[in-house]
């Protein structure tokens, strides 16, 4: 996900930079404005239609199905492993620090004092999922670990002076 987004961004910014460079390199020699207006206002309509079409495609492609699990649903039982997580200044409490790979984990996350952010990092320090930990609310994050290993829980919402030290470990074991 991260590398895909990074390369899409680089490609789009590079394309935009090329357009600006083209205009700069064609800026010194003056020409009559009306023909330029006629040609490029016409192109603007097509450009708008392209962006609008892309808007529709991206919206449906990324929101169906809706990528956040239903929050009203109960996730206990055989189908899920449940981890109740609470963020405190400046540590995490978890009902268990061990889960198995291949079976969905329901993280039920709250903030005991202030806002925190539960960020789950794999052994390569790549962020795989996150959710806010907010006082008065329990957010349910459903995530299935594909790979066993030692994951880390980092705080991703600024919560005071030891925000950066708020780290816990989560062991993901291979399914038996």
């Amino acid at each position, binding site marked *: *996900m*991260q*590398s895909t*987004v*990074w390369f899409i*961004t680089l490609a789009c910014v590079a394309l*935009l930079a090329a357009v*600006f460079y083209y*205009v*700069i390199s*064609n*800026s*010194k*020699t003056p020409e009559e*404005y009306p023909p*330029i*207006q006629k040609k490029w*206002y016409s192109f*603007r309509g097509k*450009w*708008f239609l392209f*962006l609008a079409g892309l*808007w529709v495609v*991206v*919206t449906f492609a*990324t929101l169906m199905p*809706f*990528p*956040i699990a239903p929050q009203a649903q109960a996730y206990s039982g055989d189908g899920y492993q449940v981890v109740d997580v609470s963020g405190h*200044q400046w540590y995490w409490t978890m009902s268990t620090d061990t889960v198995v790979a291949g079976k969905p984990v329901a993280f039920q996350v709250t*903030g005991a*004092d*202030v*806002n925190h*952010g539960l960020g789950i*990092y794999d052994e390569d*320090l*790549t*962020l*795989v999922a*996150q959710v806010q930990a*907010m*006082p*008065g*609310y*329990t*957010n349910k*994050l459903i995530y299935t670990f594909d790979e066993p290993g030692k994951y880390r829980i*980092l*705080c*991703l*919402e*600024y*919560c*005071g*002076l*030891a*925000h*950066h*030290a708020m780290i816990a470990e989560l062991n993901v074991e291979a399914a038996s």
Partner: protein
Amino acid sequence: MSTTTLSGTVSYSEAENQGALVAVKTHLIVGILVFLLMMLAGAVMRAAQGNMFTISPDLFYQFMTVHGAGMVGTAGIASTGVLWYFLRQYVQLSTKIFWINFGIFLTGVVLILGSIFLGKYGGAWTFLYPLPGISLGAWSAGAAAAFLLGLLVIGTGFLILYLDVGRAILARYGSFGRALGLPQLFGKEPVDTSHPPTVVAGTMVLIVNFLGIAAGAVVLVMMLVNLYNPEFKPDALLIKNLIYFFGHVFINATIYASVTAVYELLPRYTGRPWKTSKVFYAAWLAIVFMVMAVYPHHLMMDFAMPPWALIVGQVLSYGSGVPVMVVTGYGALMIVYRSGIQWNTTTKLLFLSMFGWAAGVIPAIIDAMVTVNRVFHNTLWVPGHFHFYLLLGLLPMIFGFAYHLLGEAKEGGTTMADRLGFYSFLGGGLLLAFTFLASGASSIPRRWAVHMDEWIPMAHWGTLAAILVVLGVLLFTWRALTALPRAPEPS
């Protein structure tokens, strides 16, 4: 700021024009100086993250708080200077009230600086409830109250100014709808291509910022009450909604206010008019609503939010980029293309601002997709996107306007220092934005005083970038301090 008369509604004496010019220059000079100081704070933070500089975490978070609040507030006051300068040519504005807002702003700044550096407040500009009141002894309730009160005071000053702007627009155009060009858009009146883009932009800024600041005032008062009466416990999610509504509107409005410099000045340097049209009015009408409704993209990791609100956040985040890509940025490209433009620091900065704004929108709208946000939210991708369109979009509008005002075109052209400043700023700004974005793509969290060993090389690149930016802005500042105070009104 020569004497202007439009249908007998706008008329200033020479003394009023001189007074207004001094006021605008003061806004700009103070703004540029504070930008420079805040950039130094940013460079220190990046150096600290790269272990090149040792500061304690509490001081780091104080720097982070002053950097965030200071940049947003200064962007507000400097962009108001830009908008006010151009808008007063079309509607009758009060210089006295302009100064009153400036004085109130400085009062708020003193309160905020006192809260941070005397009271040790380090709750970030976001002041997310209930962190300001729960610091585990790092700062007192009084320090938090001074910070919140400082923001409240600043907001009050802006509201007073907007009341004057609203009065002036209504006196000239009769309604905000007419000022936005709506009767022309919907065919009730013939299209008048000479209707000033600045009036349209100024009206949009007035509407959204009045509501944004009002929401901010509500939340600040609620949090002040909570600080001294902890029995009063507002809902944390409601507070977060109000804070991000206020914050998103306010910072976005700075760009929409400053873009008036592009609308007003690029035509002067290209000899091509920036005419309003139905497309222009439609884009700005859409922005009025989108800027206010788009903020839920800040809350996509708050799963307790209603799904419809998050969908609105994603859809409108994309939508709010469209007017930039189709109207303003596109219009700037057309107006420059084969125009014979006179390239100097003013025009280079104004044209750069269009690139920075449009390019910065790209990582912003990608991050505002729920499925992307779950691995990019609160990583350094986020400061990456807003540094892109604020550092390389907003600030070049303000700096470009300052160069125009100091009379660069009349002085005999661009100096070597100007060129060095521009390219140092451009190179540093691009490196800084891309380093933040690459850091975010590498999952490095934001707002961490101490970085893990794996992340330190990125902080080194960020520090180098910040130094280049500071060098460029130092040269801009030198020019602003030496040439701007005595510069006559540019014709």
